[in-house]
């Protein structure tokens, strides 16, 4: 069925398809069609049809991060997963949920909250962001310090390969070492290996209490305070810092969850100094700055001081976790392409000297080295060649032009 123009009629059989408009462009590349599959089989049908006609495909969830990563080399079909929006199975007694890729994080959270459970990811824009998009473009949120990232919570996945093959790995039990873990491979693949159709996650019981310990802190004290918090037996779930003005004050907030949160929060306060213990997070907690330009830095804890200095030196706003070794940076003002490229390379030099890595998640231009040197790149290329020999899945959108 095709609506809004007949050009695609028959190409995708029974799958709902419409003509693409300007709003459907991915980083300026306008597809010809938008396909809206409703089942795994329909995804497979679309991808088979694309394979036969050598059409390039970009999968889309809520579209909140479609402008991250470079523009695709080509894009004929935007595969919109919004109709795959069913929570398939919530086995509360097993602390497991299986959902289709298009389910929004907000809808999933609501379903789980009914049983006092949660998926321990902190996804901003949860109203729009989907399960599939969160897996394909995952960023560690604050609580990754305790629970790990999306790849650590994913226990099973159904994917559709560019030739239409439907493949599963993992399952619906947490403990499972049978076969290769395709979920790991597809998590963070930015749509370049195939389409994530369904995912199964392990869940956590919703903590009965939460407390945030919030303090303003001199930047120089952050490394020592963060180290003390990370080592604390009061077990914070997250520690985040926020410094919107590169030359301005820095706020640190630590989260404790579970029982006895107030007492444990007070224990943490002793490590920090003057601080407030509150039942509410600070307004910036787990939020993104604007993301026209967004840079991610990962680093070992011992590199904290160097990263804070480098960010300030490069005039970048900073938010993220000194205990998990991950911050997001954003330029304080608009930079042109050359300025941005210079800022990134200056930052990268300092960060890499401290054992860290710099990735540019979002940038409106081409002339920036987004990823720097990637040790496993030749192997990654070989993986891409095996999964997508025709280079039809989000071509050019990932490391090394994969």
């Amino acid at each position: 069925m095709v609506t809004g123009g007949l050009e695609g009629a028959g190409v995708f059989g029974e799958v709902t398809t419409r003509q693409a408009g300007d709003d459907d462009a991915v980083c300026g590349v306008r597809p010809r069609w938008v396909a809206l599959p409703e089942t795994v089989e329909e995804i497979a049908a679309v991808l088979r049809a694309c394979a036969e006609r050598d059409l390039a495909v970009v999968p889309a969830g809520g579209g909140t991060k479609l402008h991250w990563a470079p523009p695709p080399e080509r894009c004929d079909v935007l595969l919109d997963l919004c109709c795959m929006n069913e929570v398939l199975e919530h086995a509360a007694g097993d602390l497991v949920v299986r959902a289709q890729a298009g389910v929004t994080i907000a809808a999933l959270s609501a379903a789980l909250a009914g049983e006092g459970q949660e998926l321990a990811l902190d996804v901003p824009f949860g109203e729009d962001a989907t399960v599939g998009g969160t897996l394909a473009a995952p960023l560690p949120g604050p609580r990754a310090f305790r629970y790990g990232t999306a790849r650590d919570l994913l226990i099973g996945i159904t994917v559709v390969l560019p030739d239409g093959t439907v493949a599963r790995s993992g399952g619906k039990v947490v403990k499972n070492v049978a076969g290769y873990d395709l979920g790991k491979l597809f998590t963070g693949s930015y749509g370049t290996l195939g389409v994530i159709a369904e995912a199964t996650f392990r869940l956590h019981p919703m903590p009965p209490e939460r407390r945030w310990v919030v303090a303003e802190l001199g930047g120089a004290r952050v490394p020592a305070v963060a180290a003390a918090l990370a080592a604390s037996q009061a077990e914070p779930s997250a520690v985040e810092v926020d410094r919107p003005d590169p030359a301005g004050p820095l706020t640190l907030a630590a989260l404790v969850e579970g029982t006895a949160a107030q007492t444990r929060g007070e224990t943490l306060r002793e490590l920090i100094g003057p601080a407030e213990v509150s039942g509410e997070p600070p307004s910036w907690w787990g939020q993104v700055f604007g993301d026209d330009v967004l840079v991610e830095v990962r680093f070992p804890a011992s590199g904290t001081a160097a990263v804070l200095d480098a960010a300030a030196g490069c005039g970048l706003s900073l938010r993220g976790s000194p205990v998990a070794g991950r911050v997001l940076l954003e330029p304080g003002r608009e930079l042109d392409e050359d300025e941005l490229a210079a800022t990134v390379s200056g930052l990268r030099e300092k960060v890499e000297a401290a054992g860290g890595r710099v990735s540019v998640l979002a940038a409106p231009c081409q002339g920036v080295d987004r990823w720097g040197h990637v040790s496993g790149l030749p192997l990654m290329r070989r993986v891409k060649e095996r999964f997508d020999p025709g280079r039809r899945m989000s071509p050019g959108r990932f490391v090394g032009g994969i």
Partner: protein
Amino acid sequence: MDTLIAALRSLLPHDSVITDPVRLRTYECDGLTYHRATPGVVVLPGTAEQVARVVRLCNDFGVPFVARGSGTGLSGGALPREDGVLIVTSRMRAILEVDLADRRAVVEPGVTNLAITEAVRDRGYYYAPDPSSQQICSIGGNVAENSGGAHCLKYGFTVNHVEACEIVTPDGDLVTLDRMDPGYDLLGAFIGSEGTLGIATKITVRLCRAPEAVTTVLAAFESIEQGGQAVSAIIGAGIVPAAIEMMDALAIEAAEAAVACSYPEGAGAVLIVELDGPAAEVERQFAQLEEICSAAFELRVAADPAERAAIWKGRKSAFAAVGRISPAYIVQDGVVPRTSLPAVLAAIDRLSAEHDIKVANVFHAGDGNLHPLVLFDDGDPGAGERAEVVSGAILDLCIEHGGSITGEHGVGVDKSRYMPKMFSADDLDTMQLVRCAFDPQGLANPGKVFPTPRLCGEVPGVRKGVHPLVESGKADQL
């Protein structure tokens, strides 16, 4: 093989190449002793560079290679090839770096799991994954098997605790896979690949801060059903203990005979529950736990580390202990959703009665990971076969209930024939894509994990006649 051996000798120190048949035989099996093969040659490299050179040589000669750590694997993963090289990591045992500021340690693959914890314990840290074999098994083997332990219910598996691996790829390149790097999560794909995607030569692990409080509880129930209900109630109450282990009457009897663990007499099942974390939280959860376990006829709480060790002693000795009550046994490893435990245990009972084969049940109840010990008398003709049938039927049960054929021991040679029951041909073909990307020649631990490996150039779906790998003797048809 002779020219290969000569070439190996020219690459490695003289005492690193073993060809003496008597010494070769000490490597003929891992912990799963009924699969045996004498390796063509054994090498004991001392450095990553040496491992890489050996692997490159294997490529030049088109000869398969198998990695081996401590040989405690229970699925035949380290089973050697008679026509191949066995690469043993026992000379790569250095802890290269311990950095508590970064909460990580960098170790060589032959380092034992427990050695890492021992290196940092007095400073209040530990390495979380704790397989029962932790005194002996190597961290390289743990990476290959994605090993877990009793405490993985709360803390996860090896894959959740490894930050980076230096690997020798199947074509002999040294590559570092780091969680910090952008790009595909090849580290995640490598961990648990059972030596089929290359050899880990350096591993960076995450260290955890020791918890403030640990409370270990032994609860004795009249029946396994009551024990199972308690497990569900604990999870239902929103408690995530560090561990929940269960043993049935037969397993208790064995442990009693072997190590005199003095578990409460007359118990149909015992539950070991370990709570850990901030003291205030553990205290609160313990109060909840006491209430939940009200059906238990005895509840013991360990007051100190010695008493904790006493509670764990029976559980940790369980595998070996069944040797006291049965001349022979099969250790099975399967997983079911926790809520299916009662149905599956009842079905195992029925299987046991039907085939006249006793089954002792020991399991990680918290995550539904069963370790049924299938007991038989190898002097009794036919008993071994009946035990095999029961053991296999248990895996069928796991699959039927949406579980897995292995929770921690891996597929190896032992379970590759069950893979097609758990996964479709398309699933397996897709996994082969990963294999072919890493190992186009099919030289890294061939014949393990996957039933009939396809050659990497082959088109899926068209299998005719004898498989070329089988014909050339590189693989066995299963």
